[in-house]
């Protein structure tokens, strides 16, 4: 049999060349012009100007943001420790993404609605969800369990990208109600490949829905780097769908707050959706079950450590004398207390009763579940003491 060898210009070698180019392509650099990044606070703690975005924060507000950042990192650290000690089945750490979450979370009004992934512990904090409630899912005592309507913070969604459609539908409801509110939906860089996310962009665009798409590009979808998801910077995806996209320094809490605030305002005022790409880094593993040393180099982590979202706020506060050592000490003490409290209440979380399996599946009586519940209750009762 004759073997056809590919020559330059034939379809096979064109395809191979394209593949080669794809592998070496650096998505963070962008396909055409270099990407622009909104930054208001440098990693060194210097306030910088941006022509389109500004933020005017009182010293108290700055201290409040710092406190948020420190406390959510402490909750996260405690949860990782609880998992290592067998008290949680798994945990998805937010380490490194605190500024993206606190900045955007603090941009929300009470009337706004947030739709998280499973990593938005910082946003949950901003919405007043008790951190212990976040642990139930990871401990395996429930699948969620806080009241989304009470906090205007939806339940964690594990299937990647599904919640983007829920957020757009909710925003369409806001439109119909004529309410002065918007939704924000969180997702990661990997999720941008999902059909649901792309469908949600289309829906939001054609219905001009009041929704902010907040993509935390933490560079890694478990082990897959961004170039496995995109050949262009993610924020540029928006233009093809017909709405603005913007990249913000995801480790800059000021910039995240300013950009999200503006996008939400635009949404509430009928200007439709915005895609915000918060350029950040997942400092930890994807979850406690993951081992990032198998797929990324240590130097990358070290480089991002220099851009830490908390240190730059601290440096800024010191430089501008917005807080004294007592303040930082008091926050550390509060964090330690919070960590202890979260740990204590996590350990106290009871296992649900076996017959809870049948609860809350339907809101109205359901003959099959009634039957199965009765049968299993009788089975349990057949054991001595009524316990298996």
């Amino acid at each position: 049999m004759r073997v056809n060898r590919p020559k330059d210009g034939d379809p096979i070698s064109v395809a191979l060349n394209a593949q080669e180019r794809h592998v070496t392509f650096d998505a963070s650099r962008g396909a055409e012009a270099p990407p622009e990044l909104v930054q208001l606070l440098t990693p060194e703690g210097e306030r910088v100007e941006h022509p389109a975005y500004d933020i005017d924060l009182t010293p108290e507000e700055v201290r409040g943001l710092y406190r948020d950042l420190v406390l959510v990192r402490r909750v996260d650290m405690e949860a990782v420790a609880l998992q290592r000690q067998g008290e949680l089945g798994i945990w998805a750490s937010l380490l490194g993404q605190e500024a993206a979450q606190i900045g955007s979370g603090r941009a929300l009004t009470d009337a706004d609605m947030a739709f998280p992934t499973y990593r938005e512990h910082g946003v949950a904090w901003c919405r007043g969800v008790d951190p212990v409630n976040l642990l139930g899912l990871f401990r395996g005592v429930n699948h969620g369990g806080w009241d989304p309507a009470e906090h205007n913070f939806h339940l964690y969604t594990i299937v990647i990208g599904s919640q983007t459609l829920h957020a757009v539908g909710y925003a369409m409801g806001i439109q119909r109600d004529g309410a002065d509110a918007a939704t924000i939906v969180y997702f990661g860089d990997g999720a941008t490949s999902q059909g649901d996310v792309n469908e949600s962009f289309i829906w939001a665009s054609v219905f001009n829905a009041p929704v902010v798409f907040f993509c935390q590009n933490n560079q890694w979808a478990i082990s897959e780097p961004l170039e496995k998801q995109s050949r262009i910077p993610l924020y540029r995806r928006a233009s093809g769908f017909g709405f603005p996209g913007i990249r913000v320094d995801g480790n800059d809490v000021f910039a995240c707050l300013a950009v999200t605030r503006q996008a939400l305002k635009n949404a509430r005022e009928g200007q439709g959706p915005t895609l915000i790409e918060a350029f950040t880094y997942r400092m930890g593993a994807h979850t406690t079950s993951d081992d990032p040393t198998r797929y990324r180099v240590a130097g990358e982590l070290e480089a991002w450590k220099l851009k830490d979202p908390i240190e730059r706020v601290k440096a800024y506060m010191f430089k501008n004398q917005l807080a004294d050592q007592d303040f930082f000490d008091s926050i550390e003490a509060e964090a330690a207390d919070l960590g202890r409290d979260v740990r204590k209440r996590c350990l106290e979380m009871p296992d649900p009763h076996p017959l809870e399996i049948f609860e809350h599946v339907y809101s109205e009586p359901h003959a099959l579940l009634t039957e199965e519940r009765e049968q299993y209750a009788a089975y349990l009762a057949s054991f001595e003491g009524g316990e298996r």
Partner: protein
Amino acid sequence: MTTLTLAKAINEGLRTAMEDDSKVLIMGEDVGKLGGVFRVTDGLQKDFGESRVIDTPLAESGIIGTAIGLALRGYRPVCEIQFDGFVFPAADQIITQLAKMPLRSLGKIKLPVVVRIPCGGGIGAVEHHSESPEAYFTHTGGLRVVACSNPVDGYHMIQQAIRCDDPVIFFEPKRRYWDKAEVERGAAPLAFDRAQIVRPGTDVTVLTYGPMVKTCLEAAAAVEQDGRSLEVIDLRSLNPLDTEMVFESVRRTGRCVVAHEAPVFSGLGAELAARITEACFYSLEAPVLRAGGFSTPYPPSRLEDHYLPDLDRVLDAVDRTFAF
């Protein structure tokens, strides 16, 4: 009393539900000006406006996903999936989100979303337009699955589905859309999760639903002159099943045939056979037999008469129950 086709009866039921509750919305592909490819939503956008009768982009996952969001905001969306074979892009949202979110919230969230699916074959359609995917959904906890078979149920059950606080998968037998019946709008409807004896009989219980109800009634009429009496039960609700009525009937007749268009293997008939065997073992004169589709993809339409269980295939199963 008014004579209505099944399509018109569902249309009238939707209209009534929309008049009764301003939170009821219709969503789907071509449901607006066109009135849906089967005209089930005909005239609704004209009367209720574009914000309540929403022509959506062509993406089924998007339809269900945004309907969930609207339900979270207090709306009661009724989604139309244009054809049975197009529900699969939405299966992820239906199975992983719609069915499970109320449990995830420990009951704090209710999702009163109705997913209407024209189902079944017999209209000479191309691939993906003739399927019976009900078992995929009856297998999923958190969903209610119902199938209407006639205009009376079409009118009432769609309203009951909309009023239900749980998600409902609502199957409509497309080859029966043009069948007519007298519909009394003011009549008190049968409970949503109840089966109905549509023809009483004494010798064999025939369990069926959706498009096969008519086929089974014709089969029962055909064997009447032979002195064989079939009791035909329209299951109506596929999850939950009205096993009480089913068991009572089978205990009386001692014989049972289940008929559906969906493949027999792992179909609803398998579940019914297992449950009947367990509950009615000492009353059975013969094993429960099934008449249904083959374990193949739906064939090209020139072959669908061989695939779909017709009157003779139902009666063949009936005959076989007497051979034991």
